[in-house]
């Protein structure tokens, strides 16, 4: 089960996330230990199940089991999210937005786990506002699988855009950007930048299943 309370990024842990600054409001449930795999603890196991790609699952002899674990992770994360909000806030105050993944719709590895999680968490309340406000215009290698060839911030910004079709209704008081792992803050910052271009004063809150803890502790917690 996810933690009862979210934890925030503040002066004690912000320096681990290159793209975050004091104006960024980011919360997370647990910690994902990069490079530690299954032995990194329950949060590592949850994230591994959650991020399993469609092609990985399809290629496995245990496809049914892997899909079940992934679906269970979606349910668990949805339940954790739901506990953080009052029904009133869900239905009135927030617009929930999944941060776009690395693949475009139609790509064999396109995965809508974030949107699915938000829907599972909040749709039962009747009037939740969940929108795929952002999209990427081309598929790229996911950062955690890219073996060092990560997209630079500018490159990611260039292929991320607001989906105008999603703007027929006004955004609510606060946009919640939801993603699985806070690694450097790059995806969050790109998403925030694109939203702020269209809505300069829009309050934005980042919520993550976990924050990444890198191997060298000096790089993570340093003041």
């Amino acid at each position, binding site marked *: 089960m996810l933690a009862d309370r979210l934890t*925030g990024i*503040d002066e004690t842990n912000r320096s681990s996330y290159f793209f975050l600054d004091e104006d960024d409001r980011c919360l997370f449930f647990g910690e994902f*230990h990069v490079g530690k795999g299954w032995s*990194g603890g329950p949060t590592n196991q949850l994230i591994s199940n959650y991020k399993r790609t469609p092609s990985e699952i399809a290629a496995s002899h245990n496809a049914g089991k892997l899909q079940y674990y992934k679906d269970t992770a979606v349910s668990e994360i949805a339940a954790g999210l739901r506990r953080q*909000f*009052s029904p009133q806030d869900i239905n009135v105050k927030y617009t929930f937005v999944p941060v776009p993944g690395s693949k475009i719709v139609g790509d064999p590895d396109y995965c809508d786990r974030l949107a699915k999680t938000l829907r599972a968490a909040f749709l039962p309340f009747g009037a939740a506002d969940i929108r795929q406000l952002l999209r990427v215009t081309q598929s790229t290698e996911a950062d955690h699988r890219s073996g060092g060839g990560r997209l630079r911030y500018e490159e990611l910004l260039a292929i991320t855009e607001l989906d105008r079709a999603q703007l027929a209704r006004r955004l609510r008081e606060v946009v919640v950007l939801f993603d699985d792992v806070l690694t450097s803050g790059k995806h969050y910052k790109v998403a925030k930048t694109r939203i702020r271009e269209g809505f300069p004063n829009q309050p934005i809150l980042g919520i993550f299943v976990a924050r990444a803890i890198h191997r060298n*502790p000096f790089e993570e*917690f340093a003041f």
Partner: protein
Amino acid sequence: MDLITQAAAVDVEARAVMPARELGAYEALWAREGTTFKALADLFRENLGSVPSDLVSPAEAEQYARLALGTIRAAGVKHFGIRVHGAGEYPEKLRDAQHPVELLYFQGNWDITSSRCIAIVGTRRPTDDGVRRAAKLSRSFVDAGFTVVSGLAQGIDTVAHRTAIDAGGLTVAVLGTPITASYPAENEELQHHIADEFLAISQVPIVRYSRQGPSGNRFWFPERNVTMSALTEATVIVEAGNTSGTLIQARHAIQQGRKLFILDNCFRNSELTWPAKFAERGAIRVSDFEEIRAHLAG
């Protein structure tokens, strides 16, 4: 009010644990006269589901956060984290303690707590045989894939940590000082090494510690034994006198439902009254690592 209703009553951001605010609130609670681990545990029992910042004014939390973070910086601590009951990665096994800690500081790799952890403890002034036994056990636990946990004290603790490191294993130090201090002085380097490469944990409040002298601060040591026991699967006592602080850990290990192993040599020392007493209460008398291993599941 149950936890879910409580969550629903408060804004998501206001309810989130902000590390600086939370450690400031914990420090503020400890700065109050008469605060003990028992008093704090009672306070949180009366306020189920609360975190320290729910029980302290924002101004007070901020004031003590500045003091604690200032001390942390001044001590040259370059990296640290906290664990808060109710927030992510807090070790639920701590709740088995009689007066569980609501917040602790740590330095290093928290994921080590997901490994199988065994505490090896004993006297600060061991015999040569005691040193030999502690080293042999520590090495055997490492070879079997366990993490060796101890209290960074002189004697058996130091041998347990150093041997685990030399054997290429993992070790955790549960400190009787805040992360901003070291005791004993000769283990300062070892403490830093463990904090950088492995894991050091402390429940000791930084500001309170800085405001009282050695006589007040010696009480943190037995308290850390309670936490050490709760964090581990079992405790092994290598050698200890009748008045050793190690016996605090023995008592709490039994109370917490953890396995307690006492080496046979302790029973054979006719001057010691405690081994038989703990054996009556469920401690297991063992001669070597193989016997201990046979009692541990998996």
